[in-house]
């Protein structure tokens, strides 16, 4: 390996050793896709990750060199490299990094030719524009614009492009003017090397809402099982008693078994039956 790098210029050698140093300093080394992220957004993301993760943009060839010199399983990361990859380092595990990156996503305007990530809707209402050629531009983009009370106004809420469809140049321009930012931009974790294993993006995506709902479901199932199978636990003993009493009350009222504790409920039922019948009769 040293022979291989021997002929590299000094800045390249420095870059490679910097990557190696970072890979030793951090538990996780990952690849993120930088495609289409404007410089300003990259700055924002870098700021948001400060103290949690370090982003390093460098040439693919240098990354490959570094991976080769480190050796071992980490070389598999090289297979995930593409022209827009950057390196990311953190001490978090890959799942946390993934959700962290999801959270640092920001919105930006669509560029011509991009696909709508969701249905793009233009809301009804006045705009800040004064009457002028803008009205025609909006209309040509399929946006129902008109002049009302001396202002350019969107006459009705309209879905201008469906999810997955291409955004035309006219529409992209019009949306930008209306300050509609439909595109999510952020770093997409392509793969991560952590504690001896390479994790690919498909295993890293965890739907946090679904996950939370699963916890609730599990707790509900446990509660249901405890009550329905009458298994008393510390958490459910009181609920079990209430269930039993409720069942007893139901029987009392349903079968009109008189019992001093529930006479009000029985009379109430008889009375509401009487009122129901009366409303039919009158």
């Amino acid at each position, binding site marked *: 390996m040293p022979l291989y790098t021997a002929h590299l210029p000094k800045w390249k050698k420095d870059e490679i050793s910097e990557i190696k140093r970072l890979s030793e300093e951090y538990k996780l080394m990952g690849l993120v896709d930088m495609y289409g992220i404007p410089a300003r957004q990259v700055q924002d993301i870098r700021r948001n990750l400060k103290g949690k993760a370090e982003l390093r943009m460098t040439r693919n060839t240098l990354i490959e060199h570094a991976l080769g010199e480190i050796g071992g399983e980490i070389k598999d990361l090289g297979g995930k490299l593409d022209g827009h990859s950057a390196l990311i380092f953190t001490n978090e595990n890959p799942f946390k990094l993934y959700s962290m990156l999801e959270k640092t996503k920001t919105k930006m305007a669509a560029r011509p030719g991009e696909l709508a990530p969701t249905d793009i809707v233009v809301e009804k209402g006045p705009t800040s524009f004064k009457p002028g050629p803008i009205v025609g531009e909006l209309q040509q983009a399929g946006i129902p614009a008109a002049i009302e009370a001396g202002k350019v106004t969107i006459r009705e809420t309209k879905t201008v492009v469906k999810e997955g469809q291409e955004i035309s140049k006219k529409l992209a321009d019009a949306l930008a003017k209306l300050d509609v930012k439909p595109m999510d931009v952020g770093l997409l974790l392509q793969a991560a090397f952590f504690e001896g294993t390479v994790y690919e993006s498909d295993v890293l995506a965890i739907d946090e809402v679904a996950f939370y709902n699963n916890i609730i479901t599990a707790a509900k199932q446990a509660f249901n099982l405890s009550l329905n199978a009458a298994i008393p636990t510390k958490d459910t003993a009181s609920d079990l008693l209430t269930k039993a009493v409720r069942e007893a009350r139901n029987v009392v009222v349903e079968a009109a078994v008189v019992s001093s504790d529930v006479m009000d409920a029985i009379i109430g*039922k*008889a009375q*509401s*039956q*009487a*009122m*129901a*019948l*009366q409303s*039919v*009769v*009158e």
Partner: protein
Amino acid sequence: MEYIYAALLLHKAGKEVNESAVQAVLSAAGIAVNESRVKALVAALDGVDIEDAISKAAVAPVAVAAAAAPA
């Protein structure tokens, strides 16, 4: 309401809700019976599915709860 109770009583006991039966029940309760009200009751109940009408009473509170919940 006592006329209705008498009708329900007869119905629950599986008896026919006719004028003489209603009259008998009310009298037994010591109520001075108004004959035309008995006639009106029996006439009004003609063709009414009492069981069905009663079961709506049980439904009412359900509606209350359901309606109250999202408020």
